């Protein structure tokens, strides 16, 4: 009997190996696979838990849209690229994806054009400058889900104590940094720099845009090795070498810097608009204010905007393409409804991507108005270009090489040759 049971168990194991992974769906029902990135601790609760008035987005959507089911996963930013790429390689791309990059997917013919599924009213509601960032060859491939703007935050008390004004130029930044070092005998870092693998591209943007350079030239072609860029990165590295910054920019992340700022250990840092919320959550009581990112003498500084997107993948195997597109449209329409979207955006302290949410957000938090103005003048990363992933990583590598004495010009020349051909 024992042997029989053991044999049975073995057979069950064998059969189960071949049978998992097959899920049956009712014929008259459409199930959309959705991947949402985890923006913070509340994301999961809002989409899948009890964070939306005691319910969640999936439950509310399915109740409002009978016949459409959501198979929604909230995936951390650390894992989302691995997850999506693996699914694409296995011909199992999600129907709807929330992520930052889109150009690779669009160029490889994996995405549906937005016009195929997005209702016209909703499309007209997006900020046009945001939509422009997702257009390749006159076709829009993704819509923005939210944005954040970055500006210079400074500790008012520290600057007042030292008796200096917030810097607006690079020369002033050096003078103010030296004054802070002298006054506090090096106990407080004047300036925060993050050149880590996740944020090196942001550092590149802060300094090159403030020197009339940038990732691309006026025609939109890659120009990472321009003289302005080389000068800008040299300046950023000189700040580190002169001892004006946190000591380990290659491994100290934006969150390390924000922690230092919240603890009063860092006087100035370029950070997203959520910094006050972050500092408050950490129990910090910092008297802070914002200013424009310092630029080189005679150049204009630019705010840096960061935007994430929602896109839909093609699925040739779907029996009814029209019904699928309609279901994707309904998902977007439900997500961007002011009663849902305002809660989503304000929950993590982000900035909205649609006009219809502005009024309610400004009403709830008047500081949003100022940030929306900043957002209007922001520059964005050239994420619509296919080589963006290489450039993003490439400029970070050049910065990190420069931190240990590498040649900036040679590094940027090699990157330019690689991406521009």
């Amino acid at each position, binding site marked *: 009997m024992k042997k029989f049971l*053991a*044999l049975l168990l*073995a057979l069950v*194991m*064998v059969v189960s*190996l071949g049978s998992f992974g097959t899920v049956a769906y009712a014929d008259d029902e459409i199930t959309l696979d959705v991947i949402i990135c985890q923006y913070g601790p509340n994301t999961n609760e809002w989409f899948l838990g009890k964070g939306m008035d005691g319910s969640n987005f999936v439950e509310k959507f399915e109740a409002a849209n009978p016949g459409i089911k959501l198979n929604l996963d909230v995936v951390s930013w650390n894992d989302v*690229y*691995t997850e*999506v*790429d*693996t699914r*694409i*390689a296995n011909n199992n791309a999600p129907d709807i994806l929330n992520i930052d990059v889109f150009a*690779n*997917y669009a*160029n*490889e013919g*994996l995405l549906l054009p937005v016009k195929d599924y997005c209702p016209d009213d909703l499309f007209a509601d997006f900020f046009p400058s945001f939509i422009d960032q997702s257009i390749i060859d006159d076709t829009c491939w993704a819509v923005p889900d939210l944005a954040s703007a970055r500006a210079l935050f400074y500790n008012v008390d520290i600057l007042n104590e030292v008796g200096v004004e917030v810097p607006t130029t690079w020369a002033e930044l050096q003078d103010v940094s030296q004054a802070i070092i002298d006054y506090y005998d090096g106990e407080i870092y004047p300036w925060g720099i993050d*050149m*880590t*693998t*996740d944020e090196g591209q942001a550092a590149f943007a802060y300094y090159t845009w403030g020197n009339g350079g940038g990732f691309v030239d006026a025609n939109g072609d890659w120009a990472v090795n321009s003289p302005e860029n080389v000068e800008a990165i040299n300046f950023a590295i000189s700040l580190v070498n002169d001892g004006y910054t946190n*000591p*380990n920019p*290659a*491994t100290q992340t934006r969150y390390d810097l924000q922690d*230092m700022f919240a*603890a009063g*250990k860092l006087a100035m840092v370029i950070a997203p608009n959520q910094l006050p919320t972050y500092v408050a959550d950490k129990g910090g009581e910092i008297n802070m204010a914002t200013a424009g990112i310092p630029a080189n003498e005679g150049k204009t500084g630019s705010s840096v905007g960061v935007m994430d997107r929602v896109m839909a993948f093609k699925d040739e195997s779907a029996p009814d393409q029209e019904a699928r597109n309609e279901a994707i449209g309904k998902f977007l329409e439900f997500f961007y409804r002011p009663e849902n979207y305002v809660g989503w955006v304000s929950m993590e302290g982000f900035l909205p991507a649609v006009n219809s949410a502005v009024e309610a957000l400004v009403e709830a938090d008047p500081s949003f108005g100022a940030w929306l103005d900043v957002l209007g003048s922001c520059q964005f990363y050239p994420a619509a270009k*296919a080589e963006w*992933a*290489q450039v993003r*990583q*490439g400029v970070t*590598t*050049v910065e*990190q*090489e420069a*931190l*240990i004495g*590498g040649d900036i010009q040679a590094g940027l020349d*090699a990157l330019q040759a690689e991406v521009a051909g």
Partner: protein
Amino acid sequence: MNTRLNRNKWEPYLWLLPSMLLIAVFVVFPILIVFKLSFSYISQGGVIGGFIGFQNYVDAVKLPAFKTVMLNTMWWVISVVGLSTLLGFIIAMVLNQKFRGRKIARSILVFPWATSLVIQASVWNYIIKYEYGNLNNVLLNLGIIQQAINWRSSYQIEFIWECAVGIFVTVPFVTFCVLSGLQSIDGSLYEAATMDGAGFWGKLRHVTLPMVRPSLTVSTVLNIIYVFNSFPIVYTMTKGAPAHKTDTMITYLYMLSFYERKKGPATALSVIGFLILCVCAGVYMIGVMRKEDEQ
């Protein structure tokens, strides 16, 4: 009788079938797929194209960081496996002695091994942090140092820290392997050696080492494989920064694939790593077995 004999013949295979199937599906099949992928074009988005010969291998070897990463991997494996084997052996010798609190000491030793590597690496990150690190706090409070020390002042030091954490988490495994070997040694062998006039080193060389060699072989081969393939420590502590100077092969190919989106060369690198590992582990195993046969 014949039926019974036949049944005895195939029955073991039937019992092995589920595990063999699991190994085939989750180990052999993925390895074959990776070999196939390494000869295929893979787009940035992950779409698999046609056969391109050895192009991915050529691209991988030409990568600017390739040499640095290979050297790092070599130092990583040699230092972590070598030093943890040495330390583990010494600790096992100590724990094999009878002393008060031996059981507690053995239990404490399990902690670094039983904790997840990501947690270990994160905790060490906090310990050696310059600004608010525990190490600086303790040393400052004890008055040993007057100013906080930047424990991560260069990438070479960062890499040494990664190796140190690797050793810290690997030592318990070696210790327990060696300890199991030590406990199986018959006490009469030591008595005989003493009678023959052998001292501590003599007994260590002629009794202990030959007797624990099988345990050491197992722990060393497994450690070569685990340490070579270890991802969490390096990724959590530095993500290979600055500029891949602290990357090992495994973390580098991950960054290559999912950050730089060069999936073809990343796949080729993973095959190269697999082959290196097979050769290293194989050579070591053959060497040890030959030595045992000679003895």
